[in-house]
């Protein structure tokens, strides 16, 4: 049957099982939007294209399915860049569809023309400019396949407006084959044997579990391996929830703001088993001092990750879930009681901790998150912005399930939290979805409150409000002689120092987040005292409409422990005291 490009786009999306699409229309994607009008795909009109990408991303992280977003040409397309880069760094499957100016005016500086594929090339796994309607169905098919297979990632399809209108005979390509693309799924049997041998010989093994575990759906296999060979498990920021937080072999997070015991175990282990982790500098610290005496096994689906920053003894390329299934068969039951007891001792020396109310009677951010964890049993979907609050969320909201902690790890994108929470909530309307945000991060995408209200998406935003770009302030305090250059978010702003700091009790906060909530028809509550925390959380969880909890904390609050940038994991600062 003859179909237009726009009809083909919509039909291909439907056949891929797309139920939600996030985006904003404009001149050159109007044919596409017109066909969406008759489709059963739910279109979520966002307030900014960045919001659309993060919503698609949040949807993808929470479900494991491909998230889809769309924008017009020029400014619409360039507004996608941050979200695509965020997804690219964390290997999240997204398909972004943009309209492009008419084929015959490409390159003429036409109205709202930008070289969109040129812009997205470095921040996507792959991209397409469709110059012929005959290949459109094939391209959409390929795009979804590329996005979700191998090491997943975002894919961009740019479709000129005349191609959306052009007609062709529509044949759905049932099969796809890309001759230049076939990710390795099965691990090499010999390499798996070698890995098993190292595990058998090890006395102090450690599982170093990263975001790839979540992406591969390999949590059950990691757990089996850990239990059978009695191996403690450390997670990166991206792998929060890979093992239930109360599992006896779970140690907690690694890295710059990770646990003392976990980082020490990393330094002292004799065998590191890296599962879908990529030796990010926020985990390793100074490379030359990173886990110096361990043999290293590295499981990764991306061969380019192997040996990129750390030399490993046994690399195994393949899908983690597939590989671990085979590995578990190769290893005997083991017991590492002595090693585990040693780690427990380290844990007792320096657990995550905070002192209540050392400074006036300000609410402690850790306490708020701890209470949220208690009330929701660690089972809510939590998203974050980037900064101190993100690290507190990692430390105090260890998840029970995978795909429940959505955070921008690789790119560190402020503004990710709120829209990704909306995406996740749309995927799981019956779950509690809570965005633990910073006052700075929230302001980057808070215009999406309109989307949340409009679409009746109930998410809770807990703004950890220190009226500062807190993580910037923390670095300025520790490494820049307390010269708070452009990090204060109050009216006083500008150049602050310890001496001319505004009094937090007499401040004029900008904006007033409670009034902001009110303006949109959301529920806003301000929390300034400890006793208010639990009742407010309970009220928020019961609310039917979106909620903003504006939690006023003291700006001097810092994230500890901390490995200063460039230092080794042994140089962990446990506390300032």
């Amino acid at each position: 049957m003859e179909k237009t490009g726009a009809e083909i786009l919509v039909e291909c999306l439907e056949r891929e099982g797309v139920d939600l699409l996030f985006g904003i229309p404009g001149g050159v994607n109007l044919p596409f939007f017109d066909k969406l009008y008759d489709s059963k795909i739910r279109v979520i009109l966002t307030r900014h294209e960045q919001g659309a990408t993060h919503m698609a991303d949040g949807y993808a992280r929470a479900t494991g399915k491909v998230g889809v977003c769309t924008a017009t040409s020029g400014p619409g397309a360039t507004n996608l860049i941050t979200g695509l880069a965020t997804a690219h760094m964390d290997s999240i499957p997204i398909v972004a569809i943009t309209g492009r100016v008419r084929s015959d005016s490409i390159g003429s500086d036409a109205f709202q023309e930008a070289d969109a594929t040129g812009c997205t090339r470095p921040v996507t796994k792959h991209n397409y400019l469709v110059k012929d309607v005959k290949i459109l169905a094939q391209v959409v098919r390929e795009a979804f396949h590329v996005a979700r297979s191998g090491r997943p990632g975002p894919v961009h399809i740019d479709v000129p407006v005349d191609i959306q209108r052009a007609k062709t005979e529509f044949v759905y390509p049932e099969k796809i084959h890309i001759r230049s693309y076939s990710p390795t799924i099965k691990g090499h049997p010999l390499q798996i044997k070698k890995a098993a041998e190292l595990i058998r010989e090890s006395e102090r093994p450690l599982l170093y579990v990263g975001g790839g575990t979540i992406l591969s759906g390999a949590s059950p296999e990691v757990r089996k391996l850990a239990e059978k060979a009695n191996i403690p498990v450390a997670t990166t920021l991206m792998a929060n929830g890979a093992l239930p937080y109360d599992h006896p072999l779970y140690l907690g997070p690694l890295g710059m703001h990770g646990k003392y015991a976990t980082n020490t175990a990393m330094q002292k282990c004799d065998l590191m088993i890296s599962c879908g982790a990529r030796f990010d500098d926020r985990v390793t610290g100074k490379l030359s001092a990173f886990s110096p005496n361990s043999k290293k096994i590295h499981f990764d689906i991306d061969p380019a990750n192997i040996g990129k920053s750390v030399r490993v003894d046994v690399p195994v390329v393949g899908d983690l879930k597939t590989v671990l299934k085979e590995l578990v068969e190769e290893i005997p039951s083991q017991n590492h009681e002595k090693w585990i007891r040693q780690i427990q001792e380290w844990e007792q020396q320096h657990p995550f901790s905070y002192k209540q109310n050392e400074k006036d009677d300000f609410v402690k951010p850790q306490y708020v998150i701890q209470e949220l964890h208690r009330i929701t049993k660690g089972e809510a979907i939590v998203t974050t912005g980037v900064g101190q609050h993100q690290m507190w969320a990692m430390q105090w909201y260890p998840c029970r399930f995978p795909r429940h902690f959505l955070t921008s790890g690789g790119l560190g994108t402020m503004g990710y939290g709120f829209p990704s929470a909306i995406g996740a909530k749309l995927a799981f309307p019956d779950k509690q979805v809570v965005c633990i945000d910073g006052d700075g991060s929230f302001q980057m995408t808070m215009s999406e409150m309109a989307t949340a209200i409009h679409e009746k998406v109930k998410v809770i935003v807990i703004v950890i409000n220190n009226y500062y770009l807190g993580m910037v302030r923390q670095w300025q305090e520790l490494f820049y002689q307390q010269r708070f250059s452009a990090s204060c978010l109050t009216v006083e702003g500008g150049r602050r120092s310890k001496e001319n700091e505004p009094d937090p009790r007499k401040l004029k906060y900008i904006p007033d987040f409670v009034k902001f909530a009110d303006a949109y028809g959301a529920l806003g509550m301000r929390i300034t005292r400890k006793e208010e925390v639990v009742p407010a959380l309970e009220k928020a969880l019961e609310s039917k409409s979106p909620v903003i909890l504006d939690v006023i904390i003291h700006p001097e609050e810092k994230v500890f422990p901390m490995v200063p940038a460039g230092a080794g994991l042994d140089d962990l600062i446990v506390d300032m005291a």
Partner: protein
Amino acid sequence: MKEKMGEPRHTISILVENKFGVLARVASLFSARGFNIDSLAVGETEDPTVSRMTIVVKGDERVLEQVEKQLNKLIDVIKLCDYVETPHLERDLALIKVKADKNDRSELLQIVDIFRAKIVDVSDNSVIIEVTGDEDKIEALIRMLASFGIQEMSRTGIVAMARGGKTLTL
């Protein structure tokens, strides 16, 4: 492995889909990851759907490993061959415009002869020399021509092929 300025230099050929934007993908990969390209040559192959790029790149072992892995990761890259351990031919073609009046020509002719190059254009006070060869040969000729005064030079970049029966095809 040829040593130049201390860092190993590899000649890599890749077969890529003959599609719009592939050259930009390869070039932007190099700039994004900070790899140093010495030369890059692109052309068609015996199969019209496939183009061949030959890239000369410098870097230590780890950098080169990354270069190859990252190239292989590009969806449009079909096959890759690093010639570092393969007996192979390398050829570069250069057009060199040299200042030369009547008095210089006989000496120039001798040099051109020795290098099995060709004079392909002559004017009152300049000639264009065409030379094909590996990099060493071309560099040597350039050194010889320097004293005459090189006015302009244009090179194709290196292309390579394995000796004997070994082929880089689909």
